[in-house]
């Protein structure tokens, strides 16, 4: 028998969040997300959670599972011997159950001008970019904005004005893109008390990122660029 302990919270009914336990038979190979869907469809349709691709590429389903942030869609129930404890992402207000308000996360993302700022008029065909230049934006371009890093960051917990590992890694993604001309502006913006200098190099973001991006490394690079050019 598999046991899911899920943090529930309905702002209309509950004074504060509480854990609710569900038990059911899970076939071998069932993922945590499949377990959530099973509970929703067969036991308790009041459960709220986010999901879409179920293939670990859309970033919808980041939650806290047995002590670690992960995507529920790619976490095997069997990995934890059938006892799963699920909480929503931290540092964001809970809307309902496992669904948190992502607006602060996306607002911080938007602040770093997360779009290509061309240097001048584009060519008729594609920009020429060498393979080596292209590799410079790896792995930052793989970010699926799942917010696991945001939830894992203790600095984020202390200050919502901190831009966050996701936004800073995104800033580097553009600063390091040979086609981008907004590097100086972006760097000046993130080289601030609410930007890179707030990071205490704790490495939680690196530990939880499902796409193996290393925001701590990105932030360290940005610090070097800011100080030494």
């Amino acid at each position: 028998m598999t046991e899911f302990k899920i943090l529930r919270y309905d702002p209309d009914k509950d004074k504060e969040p509480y854990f609710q336990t569900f038990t059911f038979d899970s076939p071998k190979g069932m993922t945590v997300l499949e377990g959530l869907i099973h509970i929703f469809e067969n036991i308790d349709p009041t459960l709220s959670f986010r999901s879409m691709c179920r293939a670990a590429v859309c970033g919808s389903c980041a939650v806290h599972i047995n002590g670690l942030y992960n995507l529920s869609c790619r976490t095997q129930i069997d990995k934890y011997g059938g006892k799963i404890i699920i909480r929503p992402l931290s540092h964001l207000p809970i809307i309902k159950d496992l669904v948190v308000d992502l607006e602060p996360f996306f607002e911080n993302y938007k602040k770093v001008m997360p779009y290509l700022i061309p240097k001048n008029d584009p060519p008729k065909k594609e920009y020429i970019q060498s393979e080596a230049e292209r590799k410079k934006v790896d792995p930052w371009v793989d970010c699926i904005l799942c917010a696991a890093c945001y939830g894992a960051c203790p600095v984020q917990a202390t200050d919502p004005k901190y831009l966050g590992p996701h936004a800073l890694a995104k800033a580097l993604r553009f600063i390091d893109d040979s086609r981008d001309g907004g590097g100086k502006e972006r760097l000046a913006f993130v080289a601030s008390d609410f930007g890179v200098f707030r990071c205490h190099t704790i490495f939680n973001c690196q530990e939880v990122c499902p796409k193996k991006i290393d925001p701590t490394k990105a932030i360290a690079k940005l610090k070097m660029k800011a100080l030494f050019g």
Partner: protein
Amino acid sequence: MIFHDILIVGGGLAGLRAAIAAAEKKADVAIVSRLYPVRSHSGQAQGGVNAALANNPQAKDDTPEKHGFDTIKGSDFLADQETSIFMTEQAPEVIFEIEHWGCPFSRTPEGKIAQRPFGGAGYPRTCYGSDKTGHYMLQTLYEQTVKHNIKVYNEWAVIGLAKDVDTCCGVVALDMHSGTLQAMGANAVIFATGGSARIYGNSTNGITSTAFGVAMPYWAGVPLKDMEFIQFHPTSLYPNNILMTEGCRGEGGTLINKDGERFMTKYAPKAMELGPRDIVARGITTEILEGRGFEDSYVYLDLRHLGKAKIMERLPGIREITLDFIGLDPIEKPIPIQPGTHYCMGGIDTNIDGESPLKGFYAAGECACVSVHGANRLGGNSLLETLVFGKRAGAKAAEYTKDKSKQPRTNALERALKREEDNLNQMLKSKGNENPHKINNELRKLMPEKAGIFRNEKQITEGLAQIRALKERFKKARPIASGRSFNLDKLWFLEIKGNLDVAEAVIAGALARKESRGSHFRRDFPTRDDVNFLKHTIAIHTPEGPKLSYRDVSITKYQPEERKY
């Protein structure tokens, strides 16, 4: 009351591209999306997007015209030819645009956009970013909407259209956070709600790829076109049907049966693994049905001979998926795959400008059927269609709304709001204790069996009867959860209703089409019949079920010929 010139429903590639095009023409445009746009299913696309750029040394003779012919032949001659040709002619321009916006394509040694071979293509013309092309494109277009400061109503699920007599004048949306229903006025509405493949249980698609998007206009009287043409992608991971890109085969991956043979010699002797998807999917399924598969369920996709370096450079995402989900490293072991329901060639009836027969109502992307893909879509042409027709629909809607009044049609919108409120209240009061999710899962189980890769009259007729029985049972189902905020039970209930009605249109079309063409293969009518069926199926919703009629295919350049690879 909320009002924008243009409301775009859906924040995937087609919706975002339409929004950018409309914003560039200074229209007041907003996106209404049930998902944060970056979660959209477009992000799951892997292999690439087609354009005759001739960047690959093996493609120096490639032209948009050849791409057009490949598309039309790939469609088994059901595509409306001038629309396919238009799409392939626009391809280079829309690719360069998204690259100028920062899309991180992989590069050739000369620094140009890298292109790989793909199914049914005469030349390697699939522009790629390793095997995460959809993700890169989706992020790039979302970034541009941030740059243009385009308003997005995040996690607002549109649940119905508003019509003023014969004109679409807006939508009704469920704000998932507050739980309130909102009427939203517009002079033009563009649906970019994606595909419906999730009505099949063996789908590569994510959870929100239900048929609800095409069901809403269908219920509002907009015709659906060619619904029976469902694409089964040859290679989805066994057992969860997660997509394994065609790019695996484009980079040299081979398909092997139980006896160690590259069995595609039997089905597409020249193109082999890079035949068009319908032919490869049928080949794989035949091998499995005739006992040459593994566990009667799958065959192998072998990438081992590509070597570690190539896999890590060109197919790293595939490797992440097989490691994450089945603990398999494709560098060392072959991947178990089977066909998975992937894409709907059919959809909302539109013309080349994205206009539907309902004034003010447009559609673009997978939810629309122009038709550029006819009876079978080439890999790499769907990402292309989102850019070309998203751009075109956005631009055309902006032109259309330019001189229209900025006043919402309040009476019609309030009527639509009341209609949806009454509908929801009716749902909640329904008697009976059927579980709607069980009904949905039964639908998902029957579709691959009754309207799958190989069809015949007996199975399809059984499927139709089963769907009708499910619809009867659904009348005795109701959402249980009554909560206000993020009530998935309410939303999914509406979606399941859409799934049932659209599945009925798919099955009705399949039953009436007594031929085999592209992805629609009938064992009882195994050949193509251009005399009787060189036409599109049009389905109109009635309370008794879909009413079918036919429309000729537009043949402007290439006479239908035998389709061999």
